[in-house]
C-alpha cells in the first residue's frame, strides 16, 4: 500500500489504510467514465492511451480530494482482449465484452485460452505503461487491478455458457478455469511483477461471481479454489493475489458465510474487505464490521452510485454519516464511491468527500448528527487543470489536452465544468 501520494499530497493514505485510528476515514472511488467525461476525451482514446488514462485518472482523483488515486482500467476486459476476445468499444462508456461472441464456443477452443506473448498483446502493454507512469507521477507503488479467474471465464465463455458448463459439463468448466490460471494469468503476472516489482498484491475483480449470479456451492467449487491456485503459483515470487468486486450477499440466507469466504480470498488486498451498496444499505454495517474485525482487516464500504448521482444532499450526507457511525469505531474504515456515472454532479462528489472529512475525523464524535458538513467552494475542473499546468510538480505531459474539451480554448478552461 502506498506510503504517500505526491499527487494528492494526502498524508492519511499511510495512516488510515494501515489501521491506526488517526486522521480521517479515507475516501476513494471508481471514476473511469466520469473522469473521461470531465475532460471530454473520447472513450477510444481514454481506454487505449496509457498517458491520457493515467494522467486523467490521477488529476480527477486529486480534483475531488480522494485519499487514494486508483487506476481501475476496464478491469474485466484486459486479459480477455489479450487472448483474442472481441470487445465492443462505446463512444461514451467503458468498453465491454460482447458476451454473444465468446472466444470459447466449443471444446476445441480451449486451446485459445493461453497467453502466447505475455505483456505484448491487446492492451497489456498500455496497462504496464500506466503502472510505470503511476509510480513516476505519484511516487508510490501502484496496486494493479485486473480480472479474477471466474469473471474471466464468464468473459471468454459467456456467463450463460459457463453456467451451463457448471451444470451440465463440470469437468469442462474446471478445465477452462485451470487454463485461465495456468496459461493466461500466471504468465501475465510474471511480466507484471518484472515491470512493477514493488507491487506486492495483484487485486482481481470478480463481480460475476456474486450472488445471485452464483450460489455458495458454485462459489466454493469454482471461484475460491482458483483464486487460491493463483496465490499458490505466484507466492514464490513474493507476490499475492486478492479479490474485490463481490456483491449480492443480501440475496443469501446466510450472508455472514459468504462474507467469511470473501474475507478469506481477499486477505492480501490493501483496500481491505470491500463491500458495496445496495447490500450494505440493506443488511446494515454491523455484519460487515464484525467479519472485518474478526479477520483483523480494513473494511471498505462502497456507496451507491445511483444515490451519488441523483440523491439529495441530505441523503448522501446521511449515508456517509451512517457508515461512519456504524463502521469507524476502532478505525479501519474506508469509504468507496461506487462506479461514478458520467452525469454524477461534481457537487455530489465533493459533498461525499466533505462529509467523510467532517464526520470521519478521528476520534469519531459521539453525536455525528450535530456536526454540519460544509463543502468548500470549488474551482471548476477546467480551472483546476489550468492551475495544474502552471504548477506541474508531477511532470504530467497533458498530451491529451489537444483532444479534450479544453483544446485550444484557454478561456474555456477557466469557466467550464
Amino acid at each position, binding site marked *: 500500500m502506498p506510503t504517500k501520494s505526491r499527487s494528492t499530497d494526502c498524508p492519511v493514505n499511510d495512516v488510515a489504510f494501515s489501521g491506526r485510528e488517526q486522521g480521517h476515514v479515507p475516501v476513494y472511488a471508481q471514476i473511469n467514465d466520469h473522469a473521461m467525461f470531465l475532460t471530454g476525451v473520447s472513450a477510444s482514446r481514454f481506454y487505449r492511451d496509457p498517458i491520457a488514462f493515467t494522467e486523467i485518472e490521477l488529476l480527477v482523483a486529486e480534483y475531488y480530494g480522494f485519499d487514494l488515486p486508483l487506476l481501475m482500467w476496464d478491469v474485466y476486459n484486459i486479459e480477455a482482449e489479450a487472448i483474442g476476445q472481441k470487445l465492443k468499444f462505446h463512444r461514451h462508456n467503458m468498453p465491454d465484452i460482447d458476451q*454473444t461472441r465468446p472466444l470459447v464456443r466449443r471444446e476445441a477452443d480451449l486451446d485459445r485460452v493461453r497467453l502466447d506473448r505475455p505483456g505484448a498483446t491487446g492492451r497489456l502493454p498500455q496497462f504496464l505503461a500506466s503502472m510505470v507512469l503511476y509510480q513516476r507521477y505519484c511516487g508510490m507503488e501502484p496496486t494493479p487491478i485486473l480480472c479474477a479467474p471466474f469473471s474471466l471465464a464468464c468473459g471468454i465463455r459467456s456467463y450463460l455458457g459457463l453456467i451451463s458448463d457448471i451444470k451440465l459439463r463440470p469437468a469442462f468448466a474446471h478445465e477452462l478455469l485451470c487454463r485461465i490460471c495456468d496459461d493466461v494469468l500466471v504468465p501475465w503476472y510474471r511480466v507484471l511483477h518484472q515491470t512493477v516489482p514493488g507491487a506486492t498484491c495483484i487485486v482481481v475483480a470478480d463481480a460475476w461471481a456474486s450472488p*445471485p449470479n452464483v450460489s455458495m456451492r458454485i462459489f466454493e467449487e469454482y471461484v475460491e479454489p482458483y483464486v487460491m491456485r493463483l496465490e499458490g503459483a505466484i507466492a514464490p515470487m513474493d507476490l499475492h493475489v486478492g479479490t474485490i468486486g463481490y456483491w449480492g450477499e443480501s440475496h443469501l440466507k446466510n450472508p455472514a458465510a459468504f462474507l467469511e469466504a470473501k474475507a478469506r480470498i481477499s486477505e492480501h488486498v490493501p483496500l481491505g474487505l470491500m463491500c458495496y451498496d445496495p447490500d450494505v444499505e440493506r443488511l446494515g454495517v454491523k455484519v460487515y464490521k464484525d467479519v472485518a474485525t474478526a479477520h483483523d482487516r480494513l473494511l471498505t464500504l462502497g456507496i451507491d452510485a445511483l444515490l451519488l448521482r441523483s440523491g439529495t444532499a441530505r441523503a448522501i450526507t446521511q449515508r456517509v454519516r451512517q457508515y461512519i457511525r456504524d463502521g469507524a469505531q476502532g478505525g479501519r474504515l474506508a469509504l468507496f464511491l461506487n462506479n461514478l456515472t458520467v452525469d454524477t454532479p461534481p457537487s455530489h462528489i465533493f459533498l461525499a468527500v466533505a462529509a467523510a472529512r467532517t464526520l470521519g475525523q478521528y476520534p469519531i464524535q459521539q453525536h455525528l448528527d450535530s456536526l454540519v458538513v460544509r463543502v468548500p467552494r470549488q474551482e471548476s475542473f477546467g480551472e483546476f487543470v489550468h492551475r495544474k499546468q502552471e504548477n506541474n510538480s508531477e511532470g504530467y505531459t497533458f498530451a491529451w489536452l489537444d483532444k479534450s474539451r479544453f483544446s485550444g480554448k484557454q478561456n474555456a478552461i477557466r469557466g467550464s465544468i
Partner: protein
Amino acid sequence: MEKTEILGILSRCIVDGDANRIKIYIRDALRMQLSAMTILNEGLMPGMSVIGRQFRDNDVYVPEVIMAAQALAAAVKMLKPFLVDRCTGNRGKVMLATVPDDIHDLGKNILGIMLEGAGFSVVDLGVDVPASRIVKALETERPDILGLSCTLTITLTHIKEIIMVVRQAPAGRQVKILLGGLSVTPRFAKSVGADAYGIDASVAVQKALSMVSGSKL
C-alpha cells in the same frame, strides 16, 4: 399416465432445469392428446412460477433460473407448431431491447422466453439498441409493450433519453413501457416515466399481463 401426473412431471422438469428430460415428456403429453395450451398453462408455467417464487425467496439463484428458462425454451420450441395461429401472441405483443452501450442480455432473454410461454408475441431487438431503431421498430411492429433492459449503472442515463424520444414519436405515445435490469430500481423507473418495473423476469411477466388486461399495476 394420468394427465395430472404428466403435467406435474413437466412442472418438475422446469424446476429442475432439465431440458433433456422435458423433451421426452412433452412428446408423451402430446401423444396423450393433451393440447399445447394445456401443457403450457398447466405444466410448464406452474413450474416457472415455482422457480420465480424460489428465486424471490433466495432459495435458488440465477443459474437455476437460467436452466429452468432453457428447459422452458426447449419445451416451447417443441410446442410451437401446435400453438401457431391459435394461441401464440394472443396476449399481445412485447418489444424488447437493451439500451445503448449495454450488451448484457441474459435477463432480457429469460424474460423473452417467459413472455412467449405466457402467450405474448415477442420482438427482440437485441442489445445496444439506439433510440432511433426503437422508434422505427415501434412504427412497424406496433407492440403493446416496450420492455427496456439495463444492466450497467453507467448506461442508465440512456433509458431516460429513450423514453423521451419514444414518447415524442407518434408510434410511441400509447405504448406501455416496462423497465428491468440489474441497475434499475422502482424509484428510478418512476422518475423516468416508465409504466412499470419488473424486479425479475417472473414479476415482469405479471406486470406485462396486468398492462394488457388494463388492471392496476
